């Protein structure tokens, strides 16, 4: 049987109790926690032609110093590369770790240390998606960079979708999925 109604409601109450504490703890650690996804976002940005030269973090804001190198297009005059700075507020993407920890603490023992570590690692690393797409969205919204980026409409649509996914769904969905995956007893159906 999956978790009983009483068990689920008890879990919800305990998670509600833990959440303010884990959110507070996350907030104080958020600047440090943003380091991993910000660093991971840099190579992801490279895939879109944004050469990240530096990543600095201050007060939860990741500042990417990058160079945009226009792709070579035969028969079209080459556009000069451009240096840009993009700032991304990481806290709106990294708070999911607090939800994951609150749910894990609410689930109670026995904790499987390895599983919890994997879940925490996933919820810390996954905001790289949101950070990368936020940076790309900001670049795509600057009309003057259009000739340098030379992104076709399909790529711009993909960036818009990736940004929406990364800002509206992933921050809260990823920790919940990680928690459910690590606690199969909660969803196990009838034998």
């Amino acid at each position, binding site marked *: 049987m999956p978790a009983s109604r009483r068990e689920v409601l008890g879990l919800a109450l305990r998670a509600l109790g833990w959440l303010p504490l884990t*959110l507070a703890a996350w907030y104080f650690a958020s600047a440090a926690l943003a380091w991993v996804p910000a660093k991971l976002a840099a190579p992801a940005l490279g895939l879109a032609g944004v050469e990240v030269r530096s990543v600095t973090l201050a007060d939860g804001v990741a500042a990417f110093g990058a160079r945009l190198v226009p792709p070579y297009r035969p028969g079209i005059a080459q556009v000069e590369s451009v240096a840009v700075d993009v700032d991304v507020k990481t806290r709106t993407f990294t708070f999911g770790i607090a939800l994951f920890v609150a749910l894990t603490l609410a689930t109670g023992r026995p904790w499987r240390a390895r599983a919890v570590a994997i879940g925490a690692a996933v919820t810390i690393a996954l905001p790289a998606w949101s950070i990368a797409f936020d940076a790309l969205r900001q670049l795509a919204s600057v009309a003057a960079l259009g000739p340098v980026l030379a992104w076709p409409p399909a790529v711009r649509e993909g960036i818009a979708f990736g940004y929406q996914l990364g800002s509206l769904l992933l*921050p809260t969905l990823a920790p*919940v999925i990680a928690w459910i995956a690590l606690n199969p007893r909660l969803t196990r159906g009838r034998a």
Partner: protein
Amino acid sequence: MPGSGVLAHNGGMRWFAIRFALVLLALFAFELTPPGQTLVGPWTAFVASASAGLVQAFDGDAAARGIVLYSQKSGFAVAIQAGCNGIEAMLVLVAGMLAYPATWRQRAAGIAIGAMAIQALNLARVVSLFYLGQWNREWFEWAHLYAWQALIMLDAVIVWLLWIRHVDTRGAAAGGPPPAGATA
């Protein structure tokens, strides 16, 4: 998921996860399209209007215009944007219910009750943020960007966990797994 159970019977957690991801991405993509936005816009305006009605029931200070909820006394206004109308949490819940082995009747009931649970909490979110924003902007930002986001998703997952318990209990009482045709 290894082991016994409905998920194992119908191909396991892996297939559930694949179905869930596909349904969720399809619903989310639809939400962002122009036809989807023709539904989201009026719904968001309805949320603003319902929030204003709720506040008016207590102090008569609030009014709504489109997706904006504002105070007639202080002039403070909040615009209900994507992510604050409860739709994304509802999509997650719908995808979770469509991906889980159940009858269409069970899914319809689960979606209806779950949507109400999410939207009721979302109204509490909007109203609380309306007052919080007039009291302290820093706490408003904190509650808006982090706390309520987590709470709404927590609401969705708790509703889903209660629903799968209900579905599995009913299935067990009926003496077997739901029919294959009932799976998404």
